[in-house]
């Protein structure tokens, strides 16, 4: 009996392999104390190798594992974004209480696992890999959210995320089952063929309910209203490095599969679902923006802002055109730069002020700590979509795609949402630059004493506060690089446009 080994394209699988290897090494390293402290370097190395593999396979356009995965432009671009976000959060986690309490290697292993899930998700072209990737992404994240064991909020957010997330997963699964039933297939291309071949399948209630449930599951992952409610709570409760990772990477990976599933598998049904997605997008834009208005917690505000931003991005899928996908990917890339800048500053500021992410901790920042103030300012301007930042070009791209496909009303919604969003983004800028610093000086002074080594300041001092956090390279460098990127791509956006179009071109077979 001859064994017919399936053909494996190891080059195509190299990113997944690199991540898996890295994961194993990190887990093993936790056994040896002497290697333990190099955990972050191992993780960074893993991500660097993964990124290297992705770049190596940049122009690949191949099906892998008998059509369960597909490494193409879309997968490559979004995986790169995920890896970048992961690398940044490794840096941000250095010295973070969550990392220390959970055990550095375990924390990093969870992170790497989640990244692996995301990379798989970005490549998924079958329901199986879709579901596996999604769960591989989510489950470590649930755990990561709860890693700051000392803080009640951290545990609360982990459990909340887990429960609500599982409801979402179950809904998604149920929807997948229905689509499977309707199309008789699990591969995306096969689903599409099945739906087109089947008699009346395109408007069958089974199919459509399945589409709806899948949409709910995905909307949940990318935090689209009304499935958004976990977002602010989890963003606020989770350790900030985790939030930073989650905010950016989850969106990137989930949008990758969102694009693929809806445009490839459900492409024939585009006329059925576009209005629903448009309505969800509009709702998110409104809910996210108004919800963020009066928040005092920065992370919570960024959570709501994430809901709104997800709404903008979803608009790219609504168009079901290549331009829409390009715009979405462009916006995601921009979103990475904008959010990394913001979260890096939040992390630094948290460490300085005894883990408060209240907006008032930013008072007088512009005068005293320009290295934190500028990245935060540029991030906020970019999120608000003001020139000369990449945020403006991102919105421009989205609006252009929308108007081009006759979705002008949705473009106007984006415009309206942006106006509302100024109310909270600029509040941060105003606090940084336009509020007197006296109070924050006093606050900083009191914290500085608290931040002294325990033998002087007493037992109650928090061992994780770090009065010099604004000068730690691993916090400041990501912030500055993100700021530079936000400005650079705001002035010279073409490289990023090419990047985004690389993703869009991968789908050119399926969409116009």
């Amino acid at each position, binding site marked *: 009996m001859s064994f017919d080994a399936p053909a494996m394209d190891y080059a195509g699988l190299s990113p997944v392999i690199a991540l898996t290897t890295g994961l194993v090494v990190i887990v093993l390293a936790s056994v040896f104390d002497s290697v333990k402290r190099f955990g972050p370097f191992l993780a960074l190395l893993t991500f660097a190798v993964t990124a290297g593999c992705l770049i190596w396979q940049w122009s690949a356009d191949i099906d892998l594992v008998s059509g369960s995965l597909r490494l193409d432009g879309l997968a490559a671009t979004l995986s790169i974004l995920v890896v970048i976000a992961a690398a940044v959060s490794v840096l941000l986690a250095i010295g973070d209480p969550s990392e220390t309490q959970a055990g550095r290697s375990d924390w990093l292993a969870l992170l790497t696992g989640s990244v692996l899930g995301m990379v798989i998700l970005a490549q998924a072209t079958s*329901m*199986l890999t879709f*579901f*596996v990737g999604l*769960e591989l992404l989510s*489950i470590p994240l*649930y*755990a990561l959210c*709860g890693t700051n*064991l000392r803080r*009640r*909020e951290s*545990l*609360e*957010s*982990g*459990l*909340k995320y*887990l*429960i609500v997330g*599982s*409801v979402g*997963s*179950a*809904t998604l*699964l*149920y929807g*997948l*089952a*229905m689509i*499977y*039933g309707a199309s*008789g*297939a*699990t591969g995306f291309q096969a689903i599409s063929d099945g739906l087109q071949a089947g008699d009346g399948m395109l408007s069958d209630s089974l199919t459509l309910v399945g589409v709806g449930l899948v949409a709910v599951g995905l909307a949940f992952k990318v935090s689209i209203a009304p499935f958004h409610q976990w977002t*602010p*709570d*989890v963003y*606020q*409760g989770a350790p900030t490095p985790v939030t930073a990772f989650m905010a950016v990477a989850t969106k990137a990976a989930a949008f990758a599969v969102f694009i693929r599933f809806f445009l490839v598998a459900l492409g024939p049904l585009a006329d059925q679902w576009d209005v629903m997605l448009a309505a969800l997008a509009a709702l998110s834009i409104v809910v996210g923006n108004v919800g963020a208005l009066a*928040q005092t917690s920065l992370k*919570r505000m960024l959570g709501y802002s994430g809901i709104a931003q997800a709404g903008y991005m979803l608009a790219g899928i609504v168009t079901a055109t290549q331009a829409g996908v390009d715009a979405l990917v462009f916006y995601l890339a921009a979103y990475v730069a904008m959010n990394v800048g913001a979260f890096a500053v939040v992390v630094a500021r948290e460490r300085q002020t005894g883990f408060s992410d209240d907006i008032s901790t930013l008072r007088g920042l512009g005068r005293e700590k320009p290295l934190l103030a500028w990245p935060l300012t540029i991030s906020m301007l970019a999120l608000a979509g003001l020139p000369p930042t990449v945020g403006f070009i991102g919105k421009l791209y989205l609006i252009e795609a929308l108007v081009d496909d006759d979705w002008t009303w949705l473009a106007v919604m984006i415009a309206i949402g942006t106006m509302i969003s100024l109310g909270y983004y600029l509040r941060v800028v105003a606090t940084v630059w336009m509020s007197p610093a006296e109070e924050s000086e006093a606050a900083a002074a009191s914290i500085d004493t608290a931040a002294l080594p325990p033998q002087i300041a007493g037992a109650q001092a928090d061992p994780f506060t770090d009065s010099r956090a604004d000068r730690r390279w691993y916090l400041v460098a990501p912030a500055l690089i993100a700021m530079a990127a936000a400005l650079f791509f705001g002035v010279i956006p073409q490289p990023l446009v090419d990047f985004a179009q690389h993703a869009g071109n991968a789908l050119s077979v399926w969409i116009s």
Partner: protein
Amino acid sequence: MDIEWYLILSALLFTVGFIGVLVRRNPVVILLCLELMLSAGALALLAFSRMLGNQDGQVFVLIVLVVAACEVVVGLGLVVAMYRRRLPLDVDEMKELKG
């Protein structure tokens, strides 16, 4: 027997699970209910698989079972962590984060 009955059963399971999530306060019970919801999906997959006569659905179900187990493990881990910090095991008490 028609496939409808299987689907109705799975829908019932899904509903029961959802209602459980809605009404129960103990996180452990809620985890159980989540299992129910996932099982509902699994049942539907199985039914369709049989109806369609291909194996994809059944493979899918296997994976779903594994995933469900993982989910519960992480969930229980968090519950234990809360218990060790002597936090109430009641989802209604988990409202530090809101607004």
